[in-house]
């Protein structure tokens, strides 16, 4: 295990990218920060800039307008970066995969480290996913 991987085991800082979503996954991610789930007890913090982030959470199907911006964010991020695809939309495109503006699920655009399925996944599932990911490093 390298030094950088060692650092990733604690206090993950998370940046949230909402693609063409229905908003539910976004809300459930925010929900993780509120008193009942309180993600911060694991040292996980939502940050405002991708340049501060260790984890990129992507939810929603990615449409043509989002695609380039997602790529740009990925390139701007300091590496190593863990990418998590959230929800049915993030994993496969879900119900919107046949849409006219769909530009591919997240893993066609950037490499993904973990998938959290569900529509929307429960906050418990999101937390479990991220904690597992941190534990593996």
């Amino acid at each position: 295990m390298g030094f950088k991987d060692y650092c990733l085991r604690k206090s993950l800082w998370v940046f949230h990218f909402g693609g063409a979503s229905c908003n539910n996954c976004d809300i459930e991610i925010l929900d993780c920060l509120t008193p009942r789930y309180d993600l911060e007890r694991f040292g996980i913090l939502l940050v405002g800039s991708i340049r501060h982030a260790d984890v990129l959470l992507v939810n929603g199907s990615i449409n043509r307008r989002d695609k380039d911006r997602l790529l740009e964010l990925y390139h701007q991020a300091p590496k190593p970066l863990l990418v998590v695809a959230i929800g049915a939309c993030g994993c496969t495109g879900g119900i919107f995969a046949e849409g006219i503006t769909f530009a591919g699920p997240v893993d066609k655009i950037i490499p993904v480290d973990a998938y959290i399925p569900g529509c929307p996944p429960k906050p418990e599932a999101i937390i479990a996913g991220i904690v597992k990911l941190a534990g593996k490093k």
Partner: protein
Amino acid sequence: MSRKTLIPIGPYHPLQEEPELFKLYCDGEIVMDIKWETGYNHRGIEKLSESKSYDQVFFLVERICGICSTSHPFAFANAVEEIVGVEITDRTKYIRSIIGELERIHSHLLWVGLAGHFLGYNTLFMWAWKYREPVLDLFEMITGNRNSYAMFKVGGVRRDIENSKIPAIRKVMAVMRKKLDLLTGAVMDDPVIHARTKGVGILTRQDILDYGAVGPTARASGVDIDVRRDDPYAAYPLVNWKVITAQAGDVFAKVEVRLLEMYESASIIEQCIDALEKMKEGDIALKINEIPQGIGTGRAEAPRGEVFHFVVSDGSNSPARHKIRAPSYTNIATFKKSCIGQTIADATISLAAVDPCYCCTERMAAAYDNSSGKKILNASELIELSMKRTSELRKSGAGHE
């Protein structure tokens, strides 16, 4: 002439949980003009809907917007039931209204929290979201999911609310009232909230009528409209409740309207479960074998205002045309009135005050050729194309009145 500075908010801004780009043109601290760009959230739902069967469309329209994921199926069900020409059973009506009002409570709580967050009052954010959890638990108990409930179908609902579940609902409502008192007290008596929201982002009655704004945004400016009363559907005519209005039109009035609406919702739910208890369990769906040719319009009062669905059926098993208008579409246009002339700090809360929901509002504004990247259709050409298609449909006789 002073120079204007452009301040972009978005498209991926920590303030918003949805992708959206606002451009504030500012002179010093004062916002002189505002423009916004959409499209980051466009999924082509109306088109997708034409490729799905009526049963599947419910799951699709539910995913237009996650926060008001009942109002869209509600309006769609109203539209399709108009085509079929059926009257749903009383039990179904009550169940539908319960789900709709539970959703209003959770959506308004969510908004109160976010408004607090925008004002820098994070305690309010945490409180409101904490009290929202019991409502989501109720949803999980009744429907099996915290959001996106999959409760509706043509002619009924998919799951019953059995009598055994009613005490739990009643208990949550009782607790909810206490928490609402606490929240209302915290908001109404807080001098900082008064200072930040009173007289900010004022929309006059005339502005509302000019822009066609709906829902709490309109009601906070003294425009007394509510689809639940004006075009009754489901169980709303069967229970006692009143439409909340305020006169001031500023952000504070919008907070007030939403807080008081939650009490009304709680009382509607309580009346509905009382009625449910007296009925026989299980009478929750009509058998509907086919959707005839026809045109149907359905309206429902979402937490943010009127949702409108227009469905053309050609007698097949999927809609020939499905047109959706969500409340935020008209509410967002009022930004031109509410934000200009404000300071930047006040503009953000004025933006948030209408509770905008962008995933409902997305429209295509231009079409590009895939290979060359050239623009082939602009917005006005697209509108023309759409009008042409409507008139063709009308001529071909898909759905005569």
